[in-house]
């Protein structure tokens, strides 16, 4: 029976594999003044150019520590000076003049002056170098050196979002000396910035070690070392945090918050995200081309229950195409969960159950949609899809869930209509420069070719000339209030046209050791360890 025993042991091992993966070994704790950040995604490259922080958001998070920008956000996404002390907008609104901080230097000792800023801005304007963040930088026309510490940025038209672009991760300022000496692509593996910590060693995909920058303009950094480490499993991250192996983690699932809260050595860090989730509908395909059908589907989903029960209150039902904290947000009348109303609206739109099998018919056949969903990209993604599928089935619409590998998810979303193979898809856009205008423009401006790949992220093929006009006006409106008024109108139209089944806005949830302060969780997904200290 030896083989039998062996097989039984193998079996037990296989079944308890999940338990074994949880075992962690305690190592460096907080005593040695080192901050270890366990990230759910790995860092494969650093720096704003070329693939720009290939892994999102992990690479950006490292960038925010290594680099300074002209301006930065605080955790409420207000603008604060960083390398620029002050700025002034010209009367024609087509240029902004920045006064730089005196005495700041890069990690390699190169002084930060107007020439360095001009060098960096011109790199980001170059489509060969800045390959991924084009919409942010295309409106910029050039940079002029006024004097050693004064630089002027010109834009083609009045550009309402210039500060958002400069505060974005791609606005990082790098040492021109290092790039000239080591080559343009040196920044992806060994970048030289001016932030409080500099790169000590980098093992792409595994670990990034940062050491303090002694000449930092705001004074000596308070930590001896910052380590970014890749820890993909949520349960493993939490165990590592509890054992003291790491000091900060991101991507805490809602159902595990209680476990962290129960530990007095730990604290939960949350912020409401800027990513409103929804089920994208292919609005060019019948019957989803009928706005009444799209509205009916919105009444079919129990969004409040998803926010309360699935996210245990760490989410809120949407009432706008923008998240509550996005600049320019304005609320609308929510679509109440009312299956009876949904059934009535579907019947009025010609989708009724005439053969009594519980499913509505469209053109003589039972109506059924394919719902595309990734696993592990969005919080609770598969569970949301299953809830939505059950709710739609309840009003007579069949749903076949197609779970797809996360690496092919983004591309499948952007396939031409004829090849897409889905009618519904779980999606949420994250405006990484915090701007509602950028968000709405990326998702709802008409595509040049509505049957082909979407130009940006208009995967629903939404097309509305009023929205296009209002967004074009907003782009050249520098005055914040006037722009917000235009955006409110845009949100009103999109909300009632319902290209999405609107779902929830959930919180970003990170956690850290309780004796660590200064770690910020920004609404734009990022967990920022730059200001951390014990």
């Amino acid at each position, binding site marked *: *029976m030896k083989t039998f025993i062996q097989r039984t042991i193998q079996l037990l091992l296989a079944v308890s594999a999940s338990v074994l993966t949880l075992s962690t070994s305690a190592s460096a704790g907080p005593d040695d003044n080192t901050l270890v950040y366990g990230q759910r995604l790995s860092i494969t490259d650093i720096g704003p150019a070329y693939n720009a922080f290939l892994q999102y958001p992990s690479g950006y998070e490292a960038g925010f520590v290594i680099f300074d920008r002209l301006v930065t956000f605080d955790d409420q996404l207000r603008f604060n000076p960083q390398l620029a002390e002050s700025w002034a907008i010209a009367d024609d609104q087509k240029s902004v003049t920045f006064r730089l901080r005196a005495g700041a230097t890069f990690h390699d000792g190169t002084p930060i002056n107007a020439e360095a800023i001009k060098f960096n801005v011109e790199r980001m304007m170059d489509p060969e170098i800045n390959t991924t963040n084009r919409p942010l930088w295309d409106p910029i026309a050039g940079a002029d050196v006024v004097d050693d510490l004064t630089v002027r940025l010109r834009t083609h038209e009045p550009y309402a979002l210039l500060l958002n672009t400069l505060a974005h991760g791609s606005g990082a300022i790098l040492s021109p000396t290092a790039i000239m000496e080591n080559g343009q692509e040196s920044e992806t593996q060994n970048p030289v910035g001016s932030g409080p910590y500099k790169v000590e060693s980098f093992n792409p995909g595994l670990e990034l070690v940062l050491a303090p920058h002694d000449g930092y303009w705001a004074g000596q950094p308070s930590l001896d070392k910052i380590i970014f480490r890749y820890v993909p499993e949520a349960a493993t991250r939490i165990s590592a945090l509890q054992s003291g192996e790491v000091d900060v983690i991101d991507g805490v699932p809602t159902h595990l918050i209680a476990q962290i809260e129960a530990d007095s050595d730990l604290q939960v860090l949350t912020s409401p995200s800027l990513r409103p989730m929804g089920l994208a509908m292919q609005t060019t395909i019948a019957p989803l081309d009928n706005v009444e059908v799209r509205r009916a589907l919105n009444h079919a989903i129990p969004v409040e229950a998803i926010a309360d029960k699935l996210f245990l209150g760490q989410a809120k039902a949407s009432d706008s195409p923008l998240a509550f904290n996005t600049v320019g947000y304005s609320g609308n009348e929510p679509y109440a969960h009312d299956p009876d109303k949904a059934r009535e609206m579907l019947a009025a739109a010609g989708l009724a159950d005439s053969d009594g099998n519980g499913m509505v018919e469209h053109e003589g056949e039972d109506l059924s949609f394919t719902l595309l969903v990734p696993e592990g990209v969005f919080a609770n993604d598969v569970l949301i899809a299953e809830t939505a599928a059950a709710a739609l089935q309840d009003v007579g619409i069949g749903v076949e869930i197609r779970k797809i590998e996360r690496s092919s998810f983004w591309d499948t979303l952007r396939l031409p209509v004829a090849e897409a193979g889905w009618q519904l898809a779980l999606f949420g856009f994250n405006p990484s420069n915090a701007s509602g205008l950028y968000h709405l423009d990326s998702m709802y401006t008409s595509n040049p070719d509505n049957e082909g790949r979407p130009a940006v992220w208009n995967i629903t093929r939404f097309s509305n000339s009023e929205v296009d006009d209002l967004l074009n006006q907003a782009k050249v409106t520098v005055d914040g209030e006037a722009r917000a008024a235009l955006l409110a109108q845009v949100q009103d139209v999109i909300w009632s046209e319902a290209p999405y089944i609107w779902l929830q806005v959930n919180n970003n949830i990170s956690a850290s050791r309780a004796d660590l302060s200064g770690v910020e969780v920004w609404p734009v997904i990022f967990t920022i360890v730059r200001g951390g200290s014990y």
Partner: protein
Amino acid sequence: MKLVSPAGTSSSAQRVFVARWLSKNVYLVGGTFLLLMFVIAALFGEQIAPYGANKQNLLEALEGPSSDHWLGTDPLGRDLLSRVIVGTRHTLSVAVISVSLSCFFGVLLGLISGFVRGPLATAIDALVDVALTIPNMILAISIAAVMGAGMTGLIMAISISFTPPISRIVRGRVMEIREEDFIAAARTIGVRPWRILLRHVLPNAATVIVIEASLQAGQAVLTATALGFLGLGVQPPTPEWGTLLGYGREYLHVAPFMVIAPGLAISLMVLGFNLLGDGLRDWLDPRLGN
């Protein structure tokens, strides 16, 4: 006078015989019993399950075992016992179908490569040798990854990765039988080779095949659920044991019952197949002294 043995004596002798057979074949009996339960669950899952397998109730999400829900509920408030029972059909049919396929092809390849001499046999041998160097699990994962999540991919993955070992075992047995006197006798009287293969070789190799198939079925259950665990199993919301286990893993700290239910089901089914395989060997293999 007719010799009539008293009925009592006869039946008690039968009882003794049955009891001795049962005690000798306790594995066989245990395995058959376990598998019979799973077969019933697979055939009548929806009728047996206390709730609909996909019936959600967010108000009862993540509840521990209770008199209403014996094995607790998942994050959408679905009854775990019902999901495990209804999920039996998927795992059992994957195991049975894929092992049948791998047996069919494995036996075919094994018979040819064991019986025939020549370039064809050498080619099959080489192919099987190469396939045997690739770990089963790796092969299954790659095939399932290419085919995508779904039952067809799963069955293909398992049957392809399980064919080489069966073929190798059958080949060994065939080469043994090939040298027996009765084969030589059959040849001498001019029986055609394919007839020898089917009428004389195959029946003598049947024991090995049956035993190996039942043991492989246990491994197939593990492979199928492992692929489900890795997200390569079935599309939601279909209940599948490996997928249930994979979801449960994230909830291990707050709702350990989510992994216990499917974990137990997997263990019991593999145990059933392993007991059956070992029991069949004890019962059928003359060299073990039965």
